[in-house]
């Protein structure tokens, strides 16, 4: 078996006594789309917060790409190639879409202690940023202030930002949340396209999308992993059906 790109062991995170991440083990193989599903409040977002370093973990280890990143800062993790999107869109609302992506390109291009040359006229930043906007289908919206983009466009923009950091692996927190049917459809296609290039940890509510995309699925309930397996295995797992899929027939 290939060595996992992301290996999580015994990860715990609690908020004042409530265990939001409870002894989670997780292995993500290079190239796979690994979906995390679970009811609201199961701790999916918390898991991504801890994996991306925005929240410190209480216990457990995280290894990514041959390195122990358990104590690494959020920026350091991103620089290692672990990039994330947010359930609630997180972009720079007061600048243009292009500026948003250019800033992420800039971050990936090394340190930013460059205080003299104008960044907005730097082709090394603008070029790749434009290409990425093109790729997510926002080329003609490049100069629009990000806060003025439609909700779906903002979600796409965030993905462009994530890709601009030149990641090895994406942590996507409900990328389709709040999107229309058509937009979701397009995004689904796009994610499938991205699969060629990136390993993904995908949180998604839309079960059809999950079962269509994921190579493996982990089910989280009350912060605990109750099952991991292929979509077929998860579909057939009686625990999952009882605890989460709400299938009365399983009883």
């Amino acid at each position: 078996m290939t060595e996992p790109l992301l290996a999580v062991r015994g990860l715990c995170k609690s908020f004042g006594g409530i265990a939001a991440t409870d002894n989670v083990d997780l292995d993500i193989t290079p190239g796979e789309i690994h979906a995390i599903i679970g009811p609201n409040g199961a701790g999916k977002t918390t898991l991504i917060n801890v994996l991306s370093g925005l929240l410190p973990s209480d216990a457990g280890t995280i290894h990514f790409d041959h390195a122990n990143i358990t104590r690494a800062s959020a920026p350091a993790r991103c620089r290692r190639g672990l990039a994330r999107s947010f359930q609630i869109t997180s972009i720079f609302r007061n600048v243009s879409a292009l500026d948003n992506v250019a800033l992420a390109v800039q971050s990936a291009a090394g340190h930013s202690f460059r205080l003299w040359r104008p960044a907005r006229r730097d082709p090394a930043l603008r070029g790749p940023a434009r290409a990425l906007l093109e790729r997510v289908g926002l080329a003609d919206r490049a100069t629009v202030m990000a806060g003025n983009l439609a909700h779906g466009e903002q979600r796409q923009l965030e993905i462009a930002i994530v890709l601009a950091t030149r990641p090895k692996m994406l942590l996507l927190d409900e990328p389709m949340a709040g999107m229309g049917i058509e937009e979701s459809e397009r995004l689904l296609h796009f994610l499938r396209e991205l699969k060629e290039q990136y390993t993904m940890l995908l949180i998604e509510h839309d079960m059809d999308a999950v079962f269509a995309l994921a190579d493996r699925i982990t089910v989280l309930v009350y912060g605990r992993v109750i099952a991991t397996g292929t979509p077929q295995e998860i579909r057939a797992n009686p625990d999952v059906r009882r605890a989460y899929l709400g299938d009365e027939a399983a009883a």
Partner: protein
Amino acid sequence: MTVETPATVPQSPRLTTRLRDARTSVALLLLAIAAITPVAAPALGQPFYVDVTARIMIWAIAATSLNLILGYGGMVSFGHAVYLGIAGYTVGILAFDNITNGFIQWPLALLICGLIALVFGAISLRTKGVYFIMITLAFAQMLFFLGISVEKYGSDDGLLIFTRSEFDFGFAELDLSDATTLYYVIWILLIGSVYLSHRIVNSRFGMVIQGAMANETRMQAIGVPTYRYRLTAFVISGMMCGVAGLLSANFERFISPDVMNWPRSGELIVMVVLGGMGTLFGPILGSVAFLLLSEILSTWTEHWHLIFGPFLVLVVLFARGGLSGILDRLTGRADR
């Protein structure tokens, strides 16, 4: 520490496009007026305005420095006037000990400002919000009280500076004891500060500072360790404010702890907000407005704070975006 940001960041830093907007025009006009004041004011029989203008320009440099971290970085430093005092006292104390060489005084003053900003910033930037405001205030008060307690250098009576900084280039001498020379040195350094801000704000570094203000979490999540950039901005800003401090000490030939007392820091914030935070020329507009307003109100009544205090409250409640915002609205720029 996060402050709401203006709705746009200019897309092009090119001066030609900026000329069109009102605040730039007004600010450039003011700078031009300042350029001819030493000639025009005495000719109009108002020589007193030369000193007024020089003082306004010194404050404008300080406000510009604060704007760099407050307007573009969202760091509400309530102790910024401390750097006026640090630089001023460096000049004053060196002069007191008969070291009047400007090539020693000025770099040393800025170096000390930078080091102190580094220490203050390193501690205060670990905190956020209210903590940051109060810590910067407390640090500034600390040095204010230090100034008061050191009797050798005049305590709260301050320190007279008998000789202004001397710059001997060998082939020529920059004679700051000549009022007009000093005036134009101030004028040039003001323009220099604004230009430096312009470069910094539009550079990669500037993008990071502004991004960290707009969305710190996102900034971290795209791989930028924001703390070190903020700290750098804090140090640059402190040093730039130091320029104002050493100019002030030279201009007034006097330095006292009062320049770093907390109301001065409050006034600096007022100037920045009044002029329009996060705009290049806002601090110039703000310091002109603030100092002229206080000048006018105080000739009107000795108790001008009675009017100015509520005025500030009204500005906060009704005039967000400051004078720049008002100018923009008057000239129909609908982007705010």
